[in-house]
Each structure stands twice: as C-alpha cells, then as structure tokens.
C-alpha cells in the first residue's frame, strides 16, 4: 500500500510503450466523490463547524426536528442548514423563518446529495461562526448512505409511522448511523404495531452499538437528550480538532477510509502497472 498519500495505490512500475497493461487501482468506486468530500471536510474543519448528515425516508420529520432544534438551541449555538430536495425551496424557507441561514439544493431527479452538490451549496453559505451545520439529505433510505459528503456524523431518523423493521430492510442506511433517532414519538400510543424495543433490536442486529433516542418534535419529548447528544458531539469534535485530528462517521465507506489523509497531498500518478506484452 502507498504510505505517501494513503490512497492504497501500490507504487508504480514503468509503463509499457506498447501492448497491454493491467493497472491495480484499489480505489473506491466513488473516488471522485470521496476526494471532493475530503475537501469539504477540511473546509468544515477550518471553521470548526460540526457537519451532521440527516438521512431518512421522506416525511419522517427531518425539517420539523431542525425547526425545534433551532428553537431550543439557537440562542446558544449558531446553526446553519443545507437542504436537499428534488424540487422547491419550502424546507429552506421553513428554516429561515426560524432565523437560521439555509441553502436549498434542488437535485432535479437525483435521489441523493453528493459531495460536489454540497460543495456548490457551501459557496452560498458563510460558515464563519457556525457551530453546527445540518445537511438534510434527500428523503430516501437507499442512495444517500453511499455518498460521503465530508460530514462528521450521520443521524438516521426512523419515524413511528414507518414500521420498526426498517433497520432490517435497509441495513446499509442504518449501519451508517452514528445515532438512530425514532421520531414522531407522540404517535406511539396510537400505533400499536411500532415497538421501539424491536426497532432498537433490529438496529443492534446490524452490529450497531450506537445510541438510539426517541423524540417528538411536536410535543418536545426526548428533545433534551437530542440536544445533549448534539452538544457532546460538538465538544468531542472540537477536542479532536484541537488534537490535530478530524472526525468521520463511525461507519464509513471504503472511499472515506482511503481519503482519511490530507487530500492536498493526493496524487493520481503512481498506479501499479504490470505489463503484458502482446
């Protein structure tokens, strides 16, 4: 493995002048995305901004959670939001109405945010003084899990109306979670088929030791625990920065692992070539 840039390319032999050559690459399939994500992460780190990627199905209450989070935390910490949706400025407007800066990314028909879209969104957002940036991903339990955005933590929401077996049905998404947040807890008393213990057990079966919290944005239950999780995540993150490190989501794609080095030192120029003269 290459120790110079850490991107797992073995040192190259000489290229052949003619014939066939095989190149051992060992890059993530999302190498381009991951490279951009590393750049985004450096940008966040320069501003000491903790970036949290919120993922869930459409309609699980991501924006409502953010509205109530800004209500509770807005006077203590500076919060900004990047909103991802296929269309409309609605969610960004809801955040702005709460007094926090928001950038809306409309993806057209793309089912997820990628690192390039977030980078473009960052050009419209002043990060100076921002403590926590929430990136509200496109509502989708499949694709967003595969794309590193440069964020530091993943939070996956599971609303009580969706069914407690969602972690078993969408293991890639729930494996990515640093925190699983069961939302719309106020409906639990009328939804007798959603069992929070079962949802937690299905999450644990993905080898997840990470915390599970149950909240109701509408009634306010569980919000204090959520706020505490945010505050302690911010403290942990800044302690890591002070020690000269950064933070990545606990479960990261191969690509993010390969890009855990300073991306500025990256080089594409030394793939390992075996010649097959023909």
């Amino acid at each position: 493995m290459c120790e110079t840039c850490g991107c797992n390319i073995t040192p190259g032999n000489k290229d052949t002048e003619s014939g066939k050559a095989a190149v051992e690459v060992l890059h993530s399939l999302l190498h381009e995305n991951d490279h951009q994500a590393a750049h985004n992460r450096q940008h966040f780190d320069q501003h000491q901004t903790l970036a949290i990627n919120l993922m869930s199905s459409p309609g699980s209450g991501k924006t409502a959670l953010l509205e109530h989070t800004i209500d509770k935390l807005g006077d203590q910490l500076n919060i900004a939001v990047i909103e991802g949706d296929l269309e409309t400025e609605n969610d960004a407007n809801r955040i702005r109405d709460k007094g926090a800066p928001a950038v809306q990314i409309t993806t057209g028909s793309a089912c997820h945010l990628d690192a390039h879209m977030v980078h473009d969104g960052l050009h419209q957002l002043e990060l100076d003084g921002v403590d926590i940036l929430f990136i509200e991903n496109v509502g989708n339990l499949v694709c967003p899990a595969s794309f590193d955005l440069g964020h530091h933590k993943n939070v996956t929401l599971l609303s009580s109306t969706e069914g407690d077996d969602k972690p078993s049905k969408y293991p890639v998404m729930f494996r990515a979670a640093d925190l699983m947040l069961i939302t719309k807890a106020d409906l639990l008393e009328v939804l007798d088929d959603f069992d929070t213990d079962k949802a937690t057990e299905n999450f644990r079966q993905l080898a997840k030791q990470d915390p599970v919290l149950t909240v109701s944005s509408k009634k306010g239950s569980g919000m204090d625990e959520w706020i505490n999780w945010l505050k302690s995540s911010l403290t942990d993150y800044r302690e890591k920065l002070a020690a000269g490190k950064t933070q990545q989501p606990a479960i990261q794609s191969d690509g993010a692992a390969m890009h855990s080095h300073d991306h500025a030192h990256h080089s594409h120029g030394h793939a390992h070539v075996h010649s097959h003269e023909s």
Partner: protein
Amino acid sequence: MHELAVCQDIITQVEQLAIEHKAKAIHSINLEIGPLSGVEAALLKAAFPIASAGTVAENAQLEITAIAVTVNCNICHKQSQAAANKLICEHCGSWQTRLVTGDEMVLKRIEMDT
C-alpha cells in the same frame, strides 16, 4: 438508483488512468462489490453502457466480483459469515461484531491497450 452516478465516477477515474498510461482503449474493468456497499451489481452493469458511451472505456468488459459478508466477534473472537441485515456471530450469537468483509465497492484493476 444511484448506480449511474457510481458508474460516472468510475468512468472519470478510468479516463484519468487511461491518460496517465497513454492507453488507447480500456479492455476490462474489475470491481469488488459487497452487499453492504449499497451498490447493486446488476444495476451497475445496466448503467455501465450509458456512462461509458463515447469514452475510452466504451467497449470495456465490466467484471464484478461479489464479496460475501463476514464478521469477527468482539466477544468470542471467532469469524463467521452473516446476512447483510443480521451481523450476528454464528458461534456465540452476539451482535457485538465487527464487519470484516461485505461493504467493498472497490475499483480493483483495469486492463488497457497501451
């Protein structure tokens, strides 16, 4: 359906490697995919001709090696195979395991005409 986006990323990488190695054409592209990568091999194969059209990889063979899910138990320290949505140790039944293989999405190797 993000496999097209994944394919486009692969093509960008392959085009770069082709330039670096002065390749005239790409023969084959070998990937390793695990079920916990979130990428579906069949959909990648379907998306590949669209992403590669008009590029140096247009006629390349896309070869995909499927990787099984294996976990290492934090409690009994034995290794076992597991289902993608049940990463349980088959020896002691613990869920406190660590994924060893199964989340790969790796561009492993390409063959080219130089």
